[in-house]
């Protein structure tokens, strides 16, 4: 299933909202990718694919609930926002007063001094200026007097004061909002990370890692962006819309109604165009996906394309898809691009209507000229936050969808907590016993059944068997990455289920086939399992014992060489050696080794083998064996098939039996022996 199917590209169709799915339908395991990398504001602007949430309301509420600890300062921010918007909204009205004063001055100057307004009106009518006479009613005219600059100045100082305080309040409000958002996201990140630590390993094995990672990183990033861009803005926009409406009705209900009519018209037009644009966007994203997949394949398989001489076909397909993307992209961008001019057109029509009707009203004396001026300013302020809120609908939707995915992660079942009062062996010597252990991932499908095994301190146990036989599962149970479904495992007589995981794992060192180094220096990576403050001398000592020292010294920065994310500056074999040094330095009583070294060159392999042997001496070791030497030297060889130990014993004894081990040995190892003979 492609992600595109699950996404609906959207512009202006927010009104349709999210499909109302029952919350219990939310799948927890359906792999869904987070927002595409690089889906920044630009991608949104072009109507990028928006994930729709399954339960918009619930997840949205929960996202808001994440801000609960901040509710105190949110209230303050809200109050400041109201103040700021109220003042901003009053501003034009006050400015309009000043215009009226100026207008009155012009008219008043032309009138004889000392008469009343009524007389002045009569005077004007007598001079054939009936229109102007009607206007006097709304004007603070003093006949015979010019513009009262004292009064104008006072009004303007007031206006300036209003604007300055509005800006101040607005600034503080935005600052608080920033803080709220950042703190909320900080907490969510913290929650996710803590959650990851409490999730059982089975969660990571079942889920795709990329999927978990995407929730922990991309989705949280997306939430941060969404909250940052919408929270404060939506608040201000909504308040502004309300405030402006109020003012418009106050000035002139008639004009306000005219302006209001344009709202549903705008919404309707935007929705209409949006609906037409949507399939084009879907098409655009489909073709983008196809083209990108082709590019990805052709680049990743670049040398194959060359070697198999398929460059022409590849280019042909590219050209076809590129052309399709052009066609789809052009349509989508054109249709959605009409929205803005259309909105502007409606805005302009509104402007003309206000100018004409306002002009008529002024002429009839029902409205002052300052009022019209203020009204024009208001109608501009009105449409802007409207479009802003509309454009944020998509953003909010994608943010809530991300939040939903993060909540799914946060709601995943956790591993059982450690026992209240954990037990611990008096002395860890390395005696391990599996007593009738069974384990299953899925009910009725036992993976390990009735497995018993006793290992004495210092013994080496080699585990062999085909892939899927349960070799790794055995180790996972010992490490308590998974919990047994039946029976028990003991360490020096103590049931490991009664121990704290920390205590148990502290006694076991592990070297995995899949080497893992973190972004830090080589020294830090070696010291990873050792107690804090382990001296460099000890690190070097461990490195020397495991053949790490030699190659580290050839690096220009030695132990301070930083290993980058992919560990690209150190070869695979060298990485393996570092992980061995790490286990060595941890000085565990028990060792778990996965030997496979398929990608390592043969000389490094010798070193690794020596290092592993060094590591094993005097320790109880479980080795998932791939090498003859380990198998021969092992005290006990476990041959596993289908989750059960089918044979158990020493190399010679098992060969003598001539069973499963003998067959396996003949198939896998005999030839290697034969070839040097």
């Amino acid at each position, binding site marked *: 299933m492609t992600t595109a199917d699950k996404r609906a590209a959207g512009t202006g169709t927010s009104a349709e909202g999210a499909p109302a799915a029952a919350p219990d339908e939310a799948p927890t395991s359906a792999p869904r990718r987070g927002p595409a990398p690089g889906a920044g504001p630009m991608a949104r602007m072009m109507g990028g694919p928006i994930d729709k949430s399954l339960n918009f309301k619930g997840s949205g509420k929960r996202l808001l609930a994440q801000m609960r600890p901040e509710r105190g300062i949110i209230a303050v921010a809200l109050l400041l926002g109201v103040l700021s918007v109220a003042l901003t909204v009053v501003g034009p009205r006050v400015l309009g007063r000043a215009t009226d004063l100026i207008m009155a001055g012009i008219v008043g100057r032309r009138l004889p001094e000392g008469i009343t307004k009524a007389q002045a009106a009569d005077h004007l009518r007598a001079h054939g200026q009936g229109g102007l006479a009607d*206007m006097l009613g709304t004007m603070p005219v003093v006949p015979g007097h010019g513009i009262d600059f004292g009064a104008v100045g006072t009004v303007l100082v007031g206006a300036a004061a209003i604007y300055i305080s*509005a800006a101040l309040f607005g600034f503080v409000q935005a600052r608080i909002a920033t803080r709220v958002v950042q703190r909320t996201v900080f907490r969510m990140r913290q929650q996710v990370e803590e959650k990851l630590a409490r999730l059982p390993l089975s969660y990571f094995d079942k889920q795709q890692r990329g999927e978990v990672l995407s929730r922990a990183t991309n989705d949280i990033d997306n939430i941060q962006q969404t909250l940052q861009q919408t929270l404060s803005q939506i608040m201000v926009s909504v308040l502004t819309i309300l405030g402006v409406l109020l003012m418009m009705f106050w000035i002139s209900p008639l004009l306000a109604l005219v302006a209001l009519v344009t709202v549903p018209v705008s919404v309707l037009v935007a929705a209409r165009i949006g609906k037409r644009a949507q399939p084009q966007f879907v098409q655009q994203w489909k073709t983008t996906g196809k083209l990108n997949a082709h590019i990805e394949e052709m680049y990743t398989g670049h*040398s194959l394309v060359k070697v198999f001489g398929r460059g022409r076909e590849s280019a042909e397909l590219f050209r076809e898809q590129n052309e399709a993307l052009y066609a789809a992209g052009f349509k989508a961008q054109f249709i959605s691009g009409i929205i803005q001019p259309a909105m502007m057109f409606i805005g302009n029509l509104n402007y003309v209507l206000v100018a*004409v009707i306002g002009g008529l009203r002024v002429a009839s004396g029902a409205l002052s000229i300052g009022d019209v001026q203020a009204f024009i300013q208001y109608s501009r302020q009105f449409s802007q936050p409207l479009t802003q809120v509309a454009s944020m609908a998509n953003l909010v939707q994608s943010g809530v969808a991300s939040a939903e995915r993060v909540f799914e992660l946060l709601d995943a079942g956790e591993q059982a907590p450690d026992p209240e009062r954990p037990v611990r062996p008096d002395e860890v010597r390395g005696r391990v016993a599996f007593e009738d252990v069974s384990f299953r991932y899925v009910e009725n499908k036992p993976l390990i059944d009735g497995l018993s095994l006793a290992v004495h301190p210092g013994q080496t146990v080699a585990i062999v068997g085909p892939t899927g036989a349960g070799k790794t599962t055995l180790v996972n149970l010992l490490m308590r990455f998974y919990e047994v479904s039946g029976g028990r495992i003991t360490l020096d007589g103590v049931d490991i289920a009664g121990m704290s995981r920390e205590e148990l794992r502290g006694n076991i060192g592990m070297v995995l086939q899949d080497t893992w180094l973190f972004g830090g220096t080589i020294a830090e990576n070696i010291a990873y399992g050792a107690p804090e403050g382990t001296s460099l001398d000890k690190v070097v000592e461990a490195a020397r014992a495991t053949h790490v020292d030699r190659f580290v010294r050839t690096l220009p920065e030695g132990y301070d060489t930083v290993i980058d994310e992919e560990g690209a500056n150190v070869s695979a074999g060298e990485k393996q050696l570092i992980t061995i040094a790490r286990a060595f330095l941890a000085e565990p009583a028990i060792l778990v080794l996965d030997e496979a070294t398929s990608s390592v060159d043969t000389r490094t392999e010798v070193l690794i083998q020596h290092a592993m042997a060094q590591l094993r001496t005097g320790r109880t070791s479980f080795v998932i064996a791939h090498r003859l030497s380990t198998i021969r030297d092992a005290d006990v060889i476990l041959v596993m098939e289908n989750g059960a130990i089918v044979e158990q014993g020493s190399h010679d004894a098992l060969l003598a039996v001539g069973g499963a081990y003998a067959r396996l040995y003949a198939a896998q190892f005999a030839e290697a022996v034969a070839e040097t003979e």
Partner: protein
Amino acid sequence: MMAYASAGPAPGRFRQRLSAERGVSGTDRRNSVAEGKCSHRLPDVLVRLARVHLRPYRRSIALIVLLQLIQTLATLYLPTLNADIIDNGVVKGDTGYIFRVGGFMIAVTALQVVCAVTAVYFGARTAMALGRDIRAAVFDQVQSFSAREVGAFGAPSLITRTTNDVQQVQMLVLMTFTMMVSAPIMCVGGIVMALNQDAPLSALLLVIVPVLGILVSLIVRRMRPLFRGVQTRIDTVNRVLREQITGIRVIRAFVRDRHERERFGAANTDLYDVSLRAGRLMSMMFPLVMLIVNLSSVAVVWFGGLRIGGGRMEIGALTAFLSYLMYILMSIMMATFMVMMLPRAEVCAERIQEVLATDSSVTPPAHPVTALRRHGELELRNVEFRFPGAEQPVLKDVSLVARPGETTAVIGSTGSGKSTLLGLVPRLFDATGGAVLVDGEDVRTLDQETLATVIGLVPQKPYLFSGTVASNLRYGNPEATDDELWHALETAQARDFVERMDGGLDAAIAQGGSNVSGGQRQRLAIARALVRKPEIYLFDDSFSALDYATDAALRAALSRETDRATVVIVAQRVATIRGADRIVVLDEGRIVGTGTHTELMAGNETYREIVLSQLTEQEAA
């Protein structure tokens, strides 16, 4: 091409050798660009890229500018008409005039919307065409690259450059055409109209515009490094999380949960701090701009009032002037917005340009030879291969002949140059010294497709394309019949599992072949090469993921299948190559021995060492 030797960090010899061998990783390069080392000359790159690729659309662009001009002027005309309504209609009480001018205003508005929509039409078309063209240019360029350039950039980086980066540039151009073109027109037009209303009052603009410009650019300038800081910290937090998720077993095994918690906490706190600082600066922006705009209105009313009082200006001009002021300030805001978006697109353009400016180290011959004897004789004559800027060559003075019907094996430790050696044959790389000859012809003179038909390569990392088993097998030979496919699968020991797959030959293969196991992928890749029936087989460590039994069976079947072909096998495992007619031992890029297994065991120290390293002394005895 020399660019990336100097682009990457170059501390010391070792790193250099490594980076030459593996190629400076794409992320390194990306960082070096993203960190803005060359940000001073970045705009040039964007302009250059756009200019070159916009050339075919000159006419459309001229039309867009014209339409935007008309559209903007129409918008600007409205306040003047409004002033007219007030001065000549309202003040004089002439309702007929109000209606007439009102009607005219609607006509102007209609003209405006028609021009705007047409401009969007051509803008979208041109921008999308530009994106298409640049994408095609980058794709073609990458297709011409040798494995060396692809390795140096890294496939993921090249993918990003072709898809995301092109898209960013395309969006910027689109926004420029549909919105930004009108900003300067609006600004200049607004100023002209303001002057037209009242020239002395326009002197106010001399104060307001610079103040707004300076304040906004000051904030933007301070914001940029903060935003970059936020981004790097987000990257850090995400990196820590990624490490925690991928390394979860190790973290739990070594009981480092607490340490990891602290590490994450520190990174998260750091991110919070910087985000907060950036956010605070941002929160200053909007109120400040609004304040300037509003105070300007106050100033306009005051000074305008003075002029009206002096009888030098009409009242309608005041309202119009306020509108023009808004337009001017809006256009400045829009321009600022554009400037803020530029850096990102600049980086993208730079990254695209880097690809376009990189020449392939493997160039097609001017007069390609298409006639080939097609025996499959392969010869390397004193071949040297050196990455640019590397101190040590990867291959040095390598000479060998592989003949039809023979199996030549190359063995050596990692980094000894084995894979590079194979890559020289199909010209994934070109030798920097000496020559590679196929049937006596230098591969550099051969037609690329002619050369391709004689070679069947099984790469070290078997890559499958999305499609079906059959479509992958037919990749090198579209005409192959189903029987031929099954035969190849049987030889490659892949028949069993393909038969078990849902749909058999038509079973779906996911991108990269991720839905089959590593061993299965390897066998399918081998079958793919077999279907091609080439004269020369190149196996690059192609049996590593197979267990010994399968490996042995496969090699037995393979030798029957390829008995008349030239076979070159690169391997780590001694068992894989033991039976070869000739074994070439490679050490640090040089041939240190050639011979059969027995000969080499007797007389070649390096070979003995390699063999013995795979078995203990006691087993070898």
